[in-house]
């Protein structure tokens, strides 16, 4: 080619042909690129742009660019800081309890017993229940008029009188957390069970011949084998749960007195109750940044753990 180029203009291709040659790779990748841009990037950019504009559905004169005003307001919004604190609490307790019970369930289901197939299918059931339905169901369970739970708690001596847990400012958060744990256990149980079943059985046999007790086999074989799965599922669940407002919106609506308001439900309240889309977008952007930072942290942690191997 370069040789031909030095020979002068006679051997050069017509410009249309050259254009076709250079644009060829772009043309091949164009369909998927266009699809990605229209479906993913355009809505994302629009959503982000809302955060810098004054968009209130009930105010026809809104829509102007206001810069960082929303973020300044957010910095002074005590409701937002309380929601942030609640989010930590809600996410931490939910993930921890879901993981713990999920792991126990997976270990139990890993042992062969009669009717295991049926039990495995049943365990998966809560995951198949729509989250709104689960929220309603649990809200009714906590309701002393129609639900049994307050009466049971009362009978056990846990509470003084059968009142609704969801309306107690100190313990209201436990309601959605309990529902969330019930709803999310199957995810951990099924993924951890799959990982457990991938561990070669002869490693356990070798370990028991080497003299390991059941607990030692668990810590020196099961846990190291599960670690990558645990890391990735906990990361995923943390992000999902901190974004997951369905149960809270359905069960408490963030109340009483914002005691169960998490950032995700606060966004929902701002956008669809106060109809202030601009402010809601600004909060969402902050949540996005926080979750990205968290994900990067976990990925870095995982990388450093893997490179140690």
């Amino acid at each position, binding site marked *: 080619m370069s040789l031909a180029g030095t020979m002068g203009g006679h051997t050069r291709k017509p410009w249309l042909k050259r254009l076709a040659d250079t644009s060829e790779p772009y043309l091949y990748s164009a369909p998927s690129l266009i699809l990605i841009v229209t479906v993913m990037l355009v809505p994302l950019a629009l959503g982000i742009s809302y955060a810098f504009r004054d968009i209130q559905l009930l105010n026809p004169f809104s829509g102007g660019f206001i810069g960082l005003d929303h973020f300044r307001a957010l910095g002074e919004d005590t409701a937002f800081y309380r929601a942030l604190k609640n989010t930590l609490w809600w996410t931490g307790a939910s993930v921890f309890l879901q993981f713990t019970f999920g792991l126990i369930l997976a270990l139990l289901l890993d042992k062969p017993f009669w009717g295991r197939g049926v039990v495995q299918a049943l365990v998966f059931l809560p995951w198949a229940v729509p989250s709104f339905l689960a929220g309603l169901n649990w809200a009714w369970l906590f309701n002393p008029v129609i639900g049994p739970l307050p009466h049971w708690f009362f009978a056990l001596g846990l509470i003084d009188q059968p009142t609704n847990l969801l309306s107690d400012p100190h313990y209201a958060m436990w309601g959605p957390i309990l529902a969330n744990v019930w709803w999310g256990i199957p995810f951990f149980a099924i993924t951890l069970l799959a990982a457990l079943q991938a561990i070669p059985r002869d490693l356990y*046999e*070798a370990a028991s011949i080497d*003299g390991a007790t059941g607990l030692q086999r668990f810590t*020196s074989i099961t846990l190291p*084998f599960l670690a990558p799965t645990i890391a990735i599922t906990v990361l995923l669940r943390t992000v999902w749960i901190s974004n997951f407002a369905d149960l809270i919106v359905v069960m408490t609506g963030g109340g009483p007195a914002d005691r169960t308001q998490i950032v995700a439900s606060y966004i929902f309240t701002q956008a669809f109750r106060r109809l202030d889309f601009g402010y809601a977008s600004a909060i969402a952007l902050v949540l996005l940044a926080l979750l990205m930072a968290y994900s990067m942290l976990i990925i870095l942690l995982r990388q450093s753990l893997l490179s140690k191997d």
Partner: protein
Amino acid sequence: MASISIKNLKKAYGTFSVLHGVDLDIADGEFVVLVGPSGCGKSTLLRMIAGLEGVTEGEIQIDGARVNDRHPKDRDIAMVFQSYALYPHMTVAENMSYSLRLRKVAKDVAARAVTAASQKLGLEPFLARRPKALSGGQRQRVAMGRAIVRQPKAFLFDEPLSNLDARLREQMRAEIKKMHADLKATSIYVTHDQIEAMTLADRIVAMHGGVVQQVGSPLDLYDRPANLFVAGFIGSPGMNFLEGRAEKDGIRLRDESFMAMGDVPEHLLGQQVTLGIRPEHVVLDAHGQGMPAHLDLVEPTGFGIILHLTLNGLPLKVFTLDRAVLQAGPMVAVTLAQEHLHLFGPDGSRIGGTSDPAAAA
């Protein structure tokens, strides 16, 4: 080190019976090989000794103590698995010292044991590596090292060489034998490879269908197989079998030709019997003396030559070191060495002194 004694051991999965009553006494320091085709129960027997399978009936004793209900970790035995079963998240040194760490052996003692074992097995350069960074042969050595660091009462080997290529298998076979001569450890070795069984064993236990067929020294099994199964399983190329009817002074083969034999026991007269002869005991006669046979196929192995013949319509394998047969025509003459004939009765079990070990020697 310890003796192991097995009494009327049975194993069944539900109604499906795998072992039908095995009796075996293994002396202190003995190397016993369990050999048999797939599904004969040899691995099940080994795993029962290890404690990885429950005992349906019977008794296992290690050093005179009943261990039927003892957990594997309390039996003080070591096992080398076919898959090696190395802990992938531990280094070679950690793999080897795992059992010592579990027993809370002092760190320096454990380190010395690992060093000694790794020296013996040539693993010193790899101590800090993980199993996935090792070749198959090196992994095999680590599995052996893991077994020898603890100096257990007995070593169990479950087809430890079957994942290696032929050359490496030969080499490791010799190393296992050397290691046994060195450690004098009671060892039970399971294999389906009769060459491994012959070369390694002090005593071979040939198994078939969950039943012990014969127990004896390798040459015992080779020279005096107790029945048709052992005769056919031990030796490569396998023994030739000729079916016929017992008559006075010999056997009338199926094609009505007569094979003279010394003394046919009287109770066999008129019965269906099987004549066995090993391929190396069939003599090819260059001078055309003997029975005429058609040469079908020649398989030179380098070391010797395997010939596939048809003798009176019956297939016959011959093994010879004489390369002259490569020039032989389609017809050759063969004689069956009388003193090497094996006679098996109607039930497949061996009939008397047709092949005296003294005569064979």
